[in-house]
C-alpha cells in the first residue's frame, strides 16, 4: 500500500491568543561546553554547532572554559554601550512617531551582539552588518549626532539624504555601507577578507545575517568562498527567532541549528547564547584569533530573540503572542551583564540608575544638536546631491537631467 504524500508547512509553537511556548527549546547550563584550541581542525569540531555556548549562569556568575576573563572596565564599557544602544533606540522610535524621520529599526534584546562583538574585534576590522547591529557603532564610540543626522536625512547627513534611516555607512569606524536588500553584503565581507589576505594585511572582516535571510543565495556564496579561499572572516547568523512575521522554522531552523550549516563547508560552527555578553565576546574572540592566524572563517549562530517589532512599520502582536519576549528563556542581555557586574562587586543598582540618566541626557543632547541641522523634510534638499556619486564624476546626461529638474521642478 502506498502512502499518500502530504505537504508539510511548519508553524511556530504559538500564535496570538496562545501562551508563549518555548518548551521545545533546550537550555543547557552555562559553562559546560569545552573550548577547543584555536588551531583545532574543523573536522574535530562537528559537535559544537549542536551545543549552546553559555558563560553566564542564572546567578550571574561566569563559568567554564569559554569565560573570556574580561577586566571589569571592559565589562562596564560593554554595559554602557548596550544601555546606550537601547536608550538610543527608544528615543529614535519616539522621534519617528513624531514624524522627524520616516523609519527606524530597534535592536532591543540583541544589544550584546553588536556591542560584545565590537569589543572582541579590532576597530579597523571591517563589519558588514545587517540593520540590527547599531550596537557596533555605539561600542566603537562613533558620534551619535552623526547617526541621527543620517536618520534625519538632514544637511549634515554624510549620506546626503539618499538612504533610508539607519542604513549607515561609516568607513572610518569599520562599518560597511548598508542597503535595504537583506543578505547581499554577506559575501562582500568574504571578498573584503580575501583582499586583506591578498594584501598580506592583518585586518579581518565580520558579517551579520538574520536567521530568515540565511535562505538567500548570498549566504551560500559567502560560506562557499570563505571555505574555498580560507578567508579571514567571521560569518554571524543572528537567530532572533523571527523574520518579520515568519518564524525561524521557515528558514529551516526547526530541522537543524543554523550553526550546523558550517559543517558542510568544513568550517567551525559555534552556537552561542546571544544574550550572554561574555559568551558572545568569547566566541567572537575565538573566531577572530583563528582568522588572524590564517585559520580561515568561522560561522557563529547567535541565539537570541527579537524583543521589539521588526521595524516601526511592523506590529508583532498580529502574528506572535504579545508576551513572548518576556517568556524568552535566555533573558535580557543588559540585565544579565549588569547582574554579573554586581555579583563581581563591580557595579551597583545606584550606579546603574545614574548611568541610565547620564545616557538619556547624552542621547538627548545629541538629538538636540542634530535637530539644528534639520529633520526629514524640514528643509528642501539641494537637487544636485541627487545626481552626484552615481559615477565618480557627473556625466553629461545627468548634468542635463539636473538642469531639467532645476528649470521645471517636479
Amino acid at each position, binding site marked *: 500500500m502506498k502512502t499518500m504524500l502530504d505537504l508539510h508547512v511548519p508553524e511556530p509553537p504559538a500564535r496570538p491568543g496562545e501562551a508563549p511556548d518555548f518548551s521545545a527549546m533546550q537550555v543547557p547550563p552555562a559553562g559546560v561546553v569545552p573550548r577547543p584550541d584555536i588551531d583545532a581542525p574543523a573536522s574535530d569540531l562537528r559537535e559544537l554547532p549542536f551545543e549552546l555556548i553559555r558563560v553566564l549562569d542564572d546567578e550571574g556568575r561566569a563559568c567554564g572554559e569559554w569565560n573570556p576573563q574580561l577586566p571589569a572596565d571592559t565589562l562596564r564599557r560593554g554595559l554602557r554601550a548596550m544601555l546606550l544602544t537601547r536608550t538610543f533606540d527608544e528615543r529614535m522610535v519616539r522621534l519617528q512617531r513624531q514624524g522627524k524621520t520616516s523609519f527606524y529599526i530597534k535592536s532591543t534584546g540583541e544589544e550584546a551582539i553588536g556591542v560584545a562583538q565590537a569589543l572582541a574585534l579590532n576597530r579597523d576590522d571591517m563589519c558588514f552588518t545587517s540593520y540590527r547591529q547599531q550596537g557596533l557603532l555605539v561600542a566603537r564610540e562613533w558620534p551619535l549626532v552623526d547617526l541621527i543626522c543620517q536618520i534625519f536625512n538632514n544637511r549634515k547627513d554624510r549620506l546626503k539624504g539618499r538612504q533610508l534611516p539607519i542604513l549607515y555607512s561609516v568607513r572610518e569606524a569599520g562599518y560597511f555601507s548598508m542597503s535595504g*536588500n537583506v543578505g547581499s553584503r554577506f559575501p562582500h565581507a568574504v571578498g573584503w577578507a580575501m583582499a586583506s589576505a591578498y594584501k598580506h594585511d592583518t585586518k579581518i572582516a565580520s558579517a551579520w545575517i538574520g536567521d530568515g535571510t540565511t535562505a*538567500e543565495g548570498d549566504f551560500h556564496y559567502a560560506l562557499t568562498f570563505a571555505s574555498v579561499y580560507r578567508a579571514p572572516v567571521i560569518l554571524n547568523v543572528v537567530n532572533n527567532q523571527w523574520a518579520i512575521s*515568519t518564524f525561524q522554522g521557515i528558514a529551516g531552523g526547526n530541522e537543524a541549528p543554523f550553526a550546523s550549516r558550517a559543517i558542510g563547508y568544513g568550517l567551525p560552527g559555534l552556537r552561542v547564547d546571544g544574550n550572554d555578553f561574555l559568551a558572545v565576546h568569547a566566541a567572537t574572540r575565538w573566531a577572530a584569533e583563528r582568522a588572524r592566524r590564517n585559520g580561515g572563517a568561522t560561522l557563529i549562530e547567535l541565539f537570541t530573540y527579537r524583543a521589539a517589532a521588526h521595524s516601526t512599520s511592523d506590529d508583532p502582536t498580529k502574528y506572535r503572542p504579545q508576551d513572548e519576549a518576556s517568556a524568552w528563556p535566555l533573558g535580557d542581555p543588559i540585565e544579565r551583564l549588569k547582574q554579573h557586574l554586581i555579583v563581581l562587586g563591580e557595579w551597583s543598582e545606584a550606579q546603574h540608575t545614574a548611568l541610565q540618566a547620564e545616557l538619556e541626557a547624552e542621547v538627548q543632547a545629541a538629538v538636540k544638536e542634530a535637530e539644528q541641522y534639520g529633520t526629514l523634510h524640514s528643509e528642501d*534638499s539641494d537637487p544636485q546631491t541627487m545626481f552626484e556619486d552615481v559615477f565618480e564624476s557627473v556625466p553629461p*546626461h545627468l548634468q542635463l537631467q539636473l538642469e531639467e*529638474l532645476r528649470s521645471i*521642478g517636479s
Partner: protein
Amino acid sequence: MSSMNMVQALNSAMDVMLTRDPDVLIFGEDVGYFGGVFRCTAGLQAKHGRRRVFDAPIAEGGIVAAAVGMGAYGLRPVVEIQFADYILPAFDQLVSEASRLRYRSGGEFTAPITVRSPCGGGIHGGQTHSQSPEALFTHISGLKTVMPSNPYDAKGLLIAAIEDNDPVIFLEPKRLYNGPFDGYHDRPLQPWAAHPAGEVPDDYYRIELGKAAIARAGEAVTVLTYGTMLHVSLAAVAECGIDAEVIDLRTLFPLDIETISASIRKTGRCVIVHEASRTSGFGAELGQSVQEQCFFHLEAPILRVTGWDTPYPHAQEWQYFPGPKRVVHALKRVMED
C-alpha cells in the same frame, strides 16, 4: 459590487481563484498567517488553509524556482515578491527558466506562474523599496508584464494573469494601494471609495491581458503611461487644459500597439510618462515603436517624462518622482512644435 481599494481587489482576485481552482496556491515571504506586509493576502490562509497559502523562506530565487517546478507539475502558483526591488535575486530563474521552459521543451513543460510584486515609489521607501523594474521584463521573450492602475483593473487583470498559461509578472504600484495618487504629496489623499474604479464586482471576471484602456479621450496629444503615473498624468492634463488622450497601457507586454497607433495617428503628438529611470526604460521601447508605426503622422518629437537616471533617493523622493509639473511642461512643449 463592493467598494474596494487595490489591496482588497487583489485579495478578492486571489480568493476567487483559490475557490475556483484547486491547483491555485499562494506563497511568498510573510503572506501566510500574517497576510503580507501590504495585507494583500490577509485572511486567505485562515480561509483556504495552510496548505494553499503559506510563508516562504527569504529566497526570491527559490520562491520562483519552486513555483516553476510546481507549474511544471501542473499547478498554477501565485507568488508574492515582497518588493519589486527584491525580484532581482530571482531574475535568472525568471529569464533562464520560467520564460523559456515552454519554448525549449517544445511545449512539453510550461510555467503558468504569476509573480506579484509591489513596485514604485512615493511611500518614502528609499532606494530599495521604490524601484520600477518593468522594462527589464519586457526585454525577455516569453514573459508577460502587467501593471494595473486601479482596483477594478487590478482584480480583472490578476485573474487573467493567474489563468494565463504563460508566466506573468504582475507589478502593483504600491502608491495606489490605498487611493488614486495624483502626484501631489502635500494634498490630502483621495480614497478609492471616491473613485469609480473603486467599485469592484465580488465575483469572478477577467480583463484580457494585452489590451490598453483609454483613460481620457482627447485630440491634441497622446499620453502613454501606466500605473501610478496614469493618475499623475490625468492630474497634469486637468491642470493645463490641453485636450490630451491618456492611454493606460495596463499590459506592457504584449503591447496594445493598435490602440496606441490609432491614437497617435489622430493626435500626431506623444508624451510618455513612467516612474522608472529614463535610459532604456520602457519609454524607450514605446517611443521607438510609435515612431516606427506613425512616423509620418508625428508633428513633434515624442517626449519622455521619467524618473532620473539615478538610484531612487530617500529624502529627495519628491524631486525624483515625476510629478504633474514635469508632465505639464512636456505637454506644453510638444504642443509648441
